[in-house]
């Protein structure tokens, strides 16, 4: 109990950011029309591709000799990029379809 309290107090700022972000996430989606569910899912999918930043950091810190780390890191960068780029492009294509035609 004591330890948990200490942990909370130590990571206070993080916790505030997390809690507020949860509220923001929930409020923002609010009452989205069902027709947009698929593109919205796809857009959110692209956003969590931000994990690529972790991959870049891991890759950039790996020592020259550490083959395992280099290869795994490289793989992570490729997969992360796929998520980001593919995600945004696919969402854009989908939304193009919904666009009002003149």
């Amino acid at each position, binding site marked *: 109990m004591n330890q948990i309290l200490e942990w909370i107090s130590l990571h206070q700022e993080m916790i505030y950011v997390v809690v507020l972000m949860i509220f923001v996430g929930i409020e923002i989606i609010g009452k989205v029309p069902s*027709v947009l569910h*698929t593109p919205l899912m796809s857009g959110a999918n692209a956003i969590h591709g931000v994990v690529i930043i*972790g991959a870049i950091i891991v890759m950039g810190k790996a020592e020259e000799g550490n083959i395992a780390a280099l290869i795994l890191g490289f793989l*992570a960068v490729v997969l*992360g990029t796929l998520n980001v780029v*593919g995600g945004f492009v*696919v969402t854009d294509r989908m939304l193009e379809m919904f666009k009002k035609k003149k």
Partner: protein
Amino acid sequence: MELNILALCYLLGSVSFIIGLKMLSNPASARKGNLVAATGMFIAIVGTIFLYQENGQKLHNYSWIFGGLLIGTIIGTVMAKKVQMTAMPEMVSLFNGMGGACAALISIIEFKHLIEVDPRVFAHLGYAFFSHLDQTKLLIILLGLIIGGVSFSGSMIAWGKLNGKIKDFSFKGQHIFNLLLLIANILLAAYIIIGRPEQSPFYFYIIIFLSLLYGVFFVLPIGGADMPVVISLLNSFTGVAAACGGFLYDNKVMLTGGILVGAAGTLLTILMCKAMNRSLKNVLIGSFGGTSAVGAGVAITGSYKEISLSDAAVIMGYANKVLIVPGYGLAVAQAQHVCHELEKTLESKGVEVKYAIHPVAGRMPGHMNVLLAEADVSYEKLLEMEVANEEFKTADVVLVLGANDVVNPAAKSDPASPIYGMPILEVEEAKHVIVNKRSMKPGYAGIENQLFFQPKTSMLFGDAKKALQDLLAEIRSI
């Protein structure tokens, strides 16, 4: 200085994600919103590559990094550009899996790192002090691994199912089995964190394996038609896994972006279920959908009548207003182009033609909009449910093409029906209803449809594409 600029980049990134997602949830601004989020992502990535420092050290291995980025960008763009419109959900699922795998890989590398740098962590004998931070770190690493792993393998299965490559598979007691898998995983993780046994690396590999396995068995029994919901859920999982990375590196943009998607994705999953009038639990347990028809509700008696192609052609050709209700059947039959042909032919004969679009018609939200847009149907002709329900009153003929649940009046009248409460297209308001499907078999929800037995309704059996082609020929000949 550089770190300060990086902090600003991350702040911009976070804000752009929020604003982008906000804009994405409004039809008018959605496309711009996607661009806003993408721009923020770009800033965050470029910032990280050039400005990131740890203990005064910059990143290296630039060639590896750029190589990876390049390869990923090319493959990602090509895949996203080439995919069929109707295969969108499986594409999203695939990309989602990549994100999950990326998060899991990061955890694996950081775990190795942790052992190498600080072997004490696992030499649980012989030292009194053990750092509080390392335990938190370990917890986060394992969390990222498990969630990322589940998201990866689950997404791959979802992808395969939508592809048609993987079939539904379930055995008795599967839910218990899944639960046990999960518990074993959690216990192992807790043991590593608290007990710090010397064989930790070995247990770590077991956790990887169990996580992947859990993802597979979690998605396998769920009906293929429910995949969009599952993908949305896995999507929010990956968000949380990304947030774990944010915790690990004390990286704000990863944290906020991940949590944002985690929260928004969870709500979106629930909203999706609501739109289909089902609960999330119901979807996950897979009680209806797939082949396991339940057939609850009032037993339906009475007979239906068929209509000949020529009669149908005459009724439609001489009508003032025809409304078309497209459904899942139209999508599987790939009949959207013929349908557009039919529309043009009727219009050339002076008939007013519009489409009534139910939000969950088909197998993914917005399915019909995407499909008809692909066939170049003009946007003005697509009526949303509320508008359509007004228009039916003045329509002479409603042509239902491979739709079933979304026109089932039981949703309004029969409280015992599993779809009771779902808003439907009230096609009965029109003068005539012609229903095209292949048989009298039920649709997605597995229930009978009273509509088919009403005096107003006539059935036109056959595959949607074939039937439409024949109908088109008939209409042209009158």
